[in-house]
């Protein structure tokens, strides 16, 4: 054991590098523009470096019998709970200005991810620095790479496209009722709006692959997230005073199929379908009736 006499700095540095890289790798912006660039990134990268430092010092501190320091690190880790609250507050405040709200489930999901990713970088840092400290740099390097790969698995969660088939669908009216295929969406009273919807509106159908998927897609939180991300993917032709152009997500009660109608700015049905496929499955919206005791 190289143990207590070895200098702790190489292992701390190794741990910090792995932890910070983990956080950086997990930071990714796409068409949803979240986290915001550049200042949202700066915030989260800085927090990630702090988390990596905390993770990196824990094993060397224990090895040096600095238990007070180790306890202090554990205490400092608590601070990252604030990250979730801060993200939630900031998103909830913006929610009122969103034309298509994310919904509480989505906001909570994003906040949870930001908190959890700091713990992930803390963990990878701890693994890398611990292995380096106790077993030498070769093992440390291997452990660092291994923990990075494990953490990378968290980068992309499950998506709607994984539980449902998403395809384009036709809009039509019966009297004043708008349908996407055979799913009833809403009643539109104004003739002008009906014409506009037929001309510019686009419809998508989601077919859940099993009962779990059906129950998940039926939750309000998941449906709101789909509407929000669809609007983020293709833009929204809607101004104040035109509630009939609000994107709607409705469930066919008999089949569990879900219909989406939206009036996009970017008139690309493939972008819309792909956007819907990539909507994250929200942790808090996930349902598993097939996993219940009597379901077999």
């Amino acid at each position, binding site marked *: 054991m190289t143990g207590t006499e070895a200098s702790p700095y190489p292992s701390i540095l190794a741990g910090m590098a792995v932890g910070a890289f983990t956080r950086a790798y997990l930071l990714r912006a796409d068409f949803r523009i979240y986290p915001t660039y550049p200042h949202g990134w700066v915030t989260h990268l800085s927090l990630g470096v702090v988390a990596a430092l905390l993770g990196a010092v824990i094993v060397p501190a224990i090895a040096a019998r600095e238990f007070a320091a180790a306890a202090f690190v554990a205490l400092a880790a608590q601070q990252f709970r604030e990250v979730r609250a801060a993200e939630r507050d900031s998103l909830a405040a913006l929610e009122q200005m969103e034309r298509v709200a994310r*919904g509480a489930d989505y906001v909570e999901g994003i906040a949870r991810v930001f908190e959890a990713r700091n713990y992930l970088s803390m963990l990878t840092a701890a693994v890398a620095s611990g292995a380096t400290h106790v077993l030498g740099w070769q093992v440390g390097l291997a452990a660092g790479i291994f923990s990075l790969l494990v953490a990378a698995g968290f980068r992309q969660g499950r998506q709607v496209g994984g539980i449902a088939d998403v395809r384009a669908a036709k809009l039509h009216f019966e*009297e*004043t009722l708008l349908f996407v295929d055979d799913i009833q969406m*809403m*009643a*539109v*009273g*104004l*003739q*002008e*709006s009906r014409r506009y919807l037929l001309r510019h509106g686009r419809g998508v159908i989601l077919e859940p692959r099993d009962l779990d998927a059906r129950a998940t897609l039926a939750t*309000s939180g998941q*449906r*709101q997230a789909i509407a929000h991300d669809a609007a983020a993917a293709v833009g929204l032709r809607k101004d*104040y*005073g*035109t*509630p*009939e152009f609000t994107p709607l997500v409705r469930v066919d009660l008999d089949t569990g199929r879900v219909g989406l109608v939206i009036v996009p700015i970017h008139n690309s049905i493939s972008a819309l379908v792909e956007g819907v496929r990539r909507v994250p499955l929200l942790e808090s919206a996930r349902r598993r009736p097939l996993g219940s005791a009597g379901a077999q």
Partner: protein
Amino acid sequence: MRESGSILAVVTLRPESVGGATPSFFARDEAERERLATYLSRILDAMVHDLENGTYILVRH
């Protein structure tokens, strides 16, 4: 998703078919009903629904 709504106004061709405290607007013909409903919809940010008995209601969802 809260799915309840409240009726903000009524536009009708048949005054005898509506009543109560909701502001009601009587239109002479379908074109006027359509126009009134459009104005009110934009002003109130409310959805227009056709009850198919000559009456439109404006609902905030």
